[in-house]
């Protein structure tokens, strides 16, 4: 046994000291294949109901799930798909995160083709794009020798990698083949559209109008604003349902904490919120406070939860009371900043926000802007959104202005 082995064992036993077999909090939601999701996914009943109501229709529908970054769009999407996989096994669901520099039609084509492993044409499409397929496809060609000795040889050569010339047509062909096999239709879920800049997404949507109105069901996740507000989506009726995900309320967040902890608990216990043991190793008071600072944002909840449990384990605590929680949150602030790796200007805006408290396009003054070396709020907005993405700021729920506030964590330990 080396010293490092010792440390590893110590670490395991520290987490076990908290009654958990692992730290359940993660940066991004679990895979579709994993069963974890169904244990930890909490709330959103109304939203799920609206989506599943649509699935009772025979007609193909298009759903846009939107909301701020870290609000749980991907988790929601995966939850919808995992339910569909269980309830509608005859309806293949294709999930894909939008790759950089790809249009929607090609993205959808890849997603569907992957789900059709035994369709040779689909696999060929993937192969031609240089995407690994289940079977290796080779093209055979015969080459006859020109001399008198009669010999023939057969060579195998790799196919050249080419993107589909007409992705929309290719996708349509593929969906046609799919339809024969799956009369109930195919669900194509494209995630992470909000990782691209809004104008690029708007252009993609514009280009993909024909595809979206075609043979498949579509579920897309997108930006909190912009897409939803413009002519294309609202007036041209591109989506049958535009679903906004909001911050979770406190009781739901509390329930979510119970579910997360229970998924990792060594001895399964109570999941009744009224039972103080349901939030162990948290005390109910600490659990409540933890949910408050998480602001109902699943990703912030996960990031903070991770640090808090980590801190508690390092302290070899067996219970997370207010004292231990405070230590954990103190450690979280510098960790979030470190993880964010802010640029000089982003850091300037962050410091300004921390010093000034909430700012909005309505209340900020010209002098404030000058202090930041800028002349308009629209110039700070990208920095604020970056801070939001890094959980260093959050947007206030105000519809008549764009307002941001710092995330209130206790100051870091000196």
């Amino acid at each position, binding site marked *: 046994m080396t010293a490092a082995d010792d440390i590893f064992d110590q670490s395991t036993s520290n987490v076990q000291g908290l009654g958990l077999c692992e730290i359940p909090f993660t940066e991004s939601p679990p895979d579709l294949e994993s069963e974890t999701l169904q244990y930890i996914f909490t709330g959103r009943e109304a939203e799920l109901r609206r989506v599943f109501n649509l699935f009772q229709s025979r007609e193909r529908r298009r759903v846009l799930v939107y909301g701020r970054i870290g609000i749980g769009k991907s988790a929601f999407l995966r939850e919808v798909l995992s339910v569909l996989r269980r309830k509608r096994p005859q309806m293949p669901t294709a999930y894909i995160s939008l790759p950089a520099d790809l249009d929607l039609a090609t993205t959808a084509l890849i997603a569907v083709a992957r789900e059709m492993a035994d369709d040779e044409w689909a696999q060929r499409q993937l192969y031609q794009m240089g995407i690994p397929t289940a079977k290796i496809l080779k093209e055979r060609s015969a080459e006859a020798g020109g001399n008198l000795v009669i010999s023939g040889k057969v060579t195998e050569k790799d196919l050249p990698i080419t993107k589909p010339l007409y992705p929309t047509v290719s996708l349509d062909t593929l969906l046609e083949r799919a339809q024969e096999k799956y009369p109930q239709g195919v669900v194509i879920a494209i995630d992470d559209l909000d990782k691209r800049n809004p104008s690029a997404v708007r252009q993609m949507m514009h280009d993909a109008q024909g595809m979206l109105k075609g043979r498949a069901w579509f579920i897309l996740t997108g930006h909190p604003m*912009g897409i939803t507000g*413009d*002519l294309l989506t*609202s007036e041209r009726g591109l989506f049958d349902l535009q679903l906004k995900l909001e911050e979770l309320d406190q009781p739901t967040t509390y329930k979510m904490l119970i579910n997360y902890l229970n998924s990792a608990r060594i001895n399964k216990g109570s999941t009744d919120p009224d039972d103080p043991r349901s939030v162990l190793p948290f005390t109910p008071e600490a659990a409540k406070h933890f949910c408050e600072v998480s602001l109902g944002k699943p990703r912030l909840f996960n990031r903070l939860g991770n640090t808090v449990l980590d801190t508690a384990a390092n302290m070899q605590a067996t219970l997370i009371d207010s004292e231990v929680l405070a230590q954990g949150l103190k450690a979280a602030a510098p960790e979030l900043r470190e993880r964010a790796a802010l640029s000089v200007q982003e850091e300037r805006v962050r410091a300004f926000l921390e010093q000034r408290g909430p700012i909005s*396009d309505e209340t900020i003054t010209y002098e404030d802007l000058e202090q930041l070396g800028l002349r308009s709020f629209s*110039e700070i907005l990208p920095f604020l959104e970056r801070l939001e993405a890094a959980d260093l700021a959050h947007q206030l729920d105000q519809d*008549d202005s*764009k307002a941001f506030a710092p995330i209130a964590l206790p100051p870091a330990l000196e």
Partner: protein
Amino acid sequence: MGKGFGQPKVVPTRNATQFMRAFGKCYAKAKGDKRQVEQFLQANLAKLDEHLLDALSYIFPKLLADQKFGDKQNVATLFLVFGNTVGDFPLGDRALNLELSIAAYQVALKVYPRDMFPQEWALLQNNLGNAYVDRIRGDRAESLEQAIAAYELSLQVYTRDTFPEEWAMSQNNLGNVYSNRIRGDRAENLEQAITACELSLQVRTRDTSPEEWAMSQNNLGNAYSNRIRGDRAENLDQAIMAYELSLQIYTSDTFPEEWARSQNNLSDAYCNRIRGDRAENIERAIVASELSLQIYTRDTLPEYWARSQNNLGNAYQARIRGDKAENLEKAIAAYDLSLQVYTRAAFPEDWARSQTNLSAAYGNRIRGERAENLEQALAAYELSLQVHTREAFPEAWARAENNLGTAYSNRIRGDRAQNLEQAITAYELSLQVCTRNAFPESWARSKHNLASAYCDRILGEQSDNLRTAVDLYQEAAQVFTQEAFPLSWAENQGCLAEALINQASLTDNSDDLDTAITLLKEALEVAVPGSPGFIDSQYRLGNALSRRFELNQNANDLQDALKAYKTALDAISPEHYDREKIWQALPTTQSVLGSRLVREGQWQEGLQLLLNSVRLLSEGDDQLAHANALYQTGRAHETLSDWDNARLYYRDALRLYEHLNDQPGIAQSRHGLGSVLASQGYFKKGMAELQQARDLYQQLDRQNRVREVDNLYQAAQRAEQQLSEVPA
């Protein structure tokens, strides 16, 4: 030359006498080998001084008394030879050398009376004329008159019948000096120059005296290059033809220096040529300058080398092909080289000319800090004006004053209002010499520049300034015709159009806009697509058309404006356009075009342009343009029903307008903001904004805006009432 004052007895003559004796001995020994005589002067450089100049006219008797050089005529010949040698001598103080040469000729002339020695006398007059042409000291205008007088005296003896060759030589020289004459009517002087050169060419034929023929062709080329009368395009082509004829004889093998000189002149003429492809002409100018520099090296022929460097600089400064920034750096480098030889002491005139050219290059420079470059330009003009005084070099003085005006017009440092007043003063000074008759091109240029300064003027009534500017541009247009000066014509048309557009914005007079549009369309017919002038004209045309659209709401004007803006925008590229203009034109064009496109339904493209313009303007100094672009972006988002962004940009615009205290801007931003808030259902907040917008529009007396806001307000009020009536 016997100076009027100074007592003969107190002038020490011993050293001078010894020097001339030694010179005489050397000359006798050299037996016509010019190089040996020059070597003698080089060895005795220190003796070529003011004392020698003072003593020269007194030592003739002493040399005669020596009896070493023969009789009076022989001693006089010695002075003639000394005058020739020292006048051409490239070392020492050139101003002094020329004085020595003149003094020596004048001594010799006393000995050779015209009636007894007509030939020698005429030769001396001719040489004296040459020395006066080059003279540095004294009043230049007067020196040139002296030169003309001397040549004309020589021509009294050298008649065509008796001494055809000499006659042709003096005609040639006379032509040369008339080309540069300051006094008298300049147009007439140049006609005289052409006549004289053509007379000399009647005798000097290519077959009989090819070398002289080539020289006169070269001088004829010079006169045609500057000619005022007749068709300018034709004159310049005549000049080019004359230079090219001279180059048939002057080859780089047989007459390398002359070949190089004609190449250099050819370069200058191609630089100014009107006919043919301008870009191509300038390339030819560069080639010609570079050819001349194959012969002219700094060591062997420093003066000519410097002149070719100067011309090369001019060609690079005017160059159309290649990278503009790079061309200007090459021009500056060439001028700097020429100034290594053209020092103020030895070649004051050339020094001043290169300084002037250098200033112009600094004024246009793209690299480096612009404010600093303009200060450099100002400093160089001030230097050149120390030599190019009004009395001695009226033309160059006037040109420098004109350029000084331009540098002040563009100046970034200092008080802008004051700089423009300085510019106006400088242009007006230049116009005192550059009269329409004597220097029509320079006159028109200064009128044009003066007009531009009035357009920008800060002091005085704007409407008065614009009226003055329009009048001045129209005056310039009398000379800048499409045929004679196509480039300047187009530029002047464009500026006149701009002044008319500005005037129309004060008066809402659509006649001015109609005229402006006609002028710009004419200019565009001949403009080179992609050239700065072309982009300017397209941009102005866009402005004029969109302004006219605002007045008459004719959709065709809007379409045409869109097209013009688009063309301008497509043509703008950092390589072919100067920085200052791109910074102004690009974002402004983008924001105008962007907001038009959005309203026309091409919202993706339009919004992209607007966001680009906002980004560019946020880094610039023009805060009002930035505020306008923010406002237009807000409007575009509102058109797209993107309320969140519309609100955000209206608020940004409002904040900036308030900072700038721009009342119309504040009113329109509150108008937009109120409309968006009401659309989102925030009726109270929206109505409060609308109320403030209405009050401001009322103050600004914008009645149709007041009505628009009233309608919106009432709609919001109704909607609010309906909402409160609906049971929760």
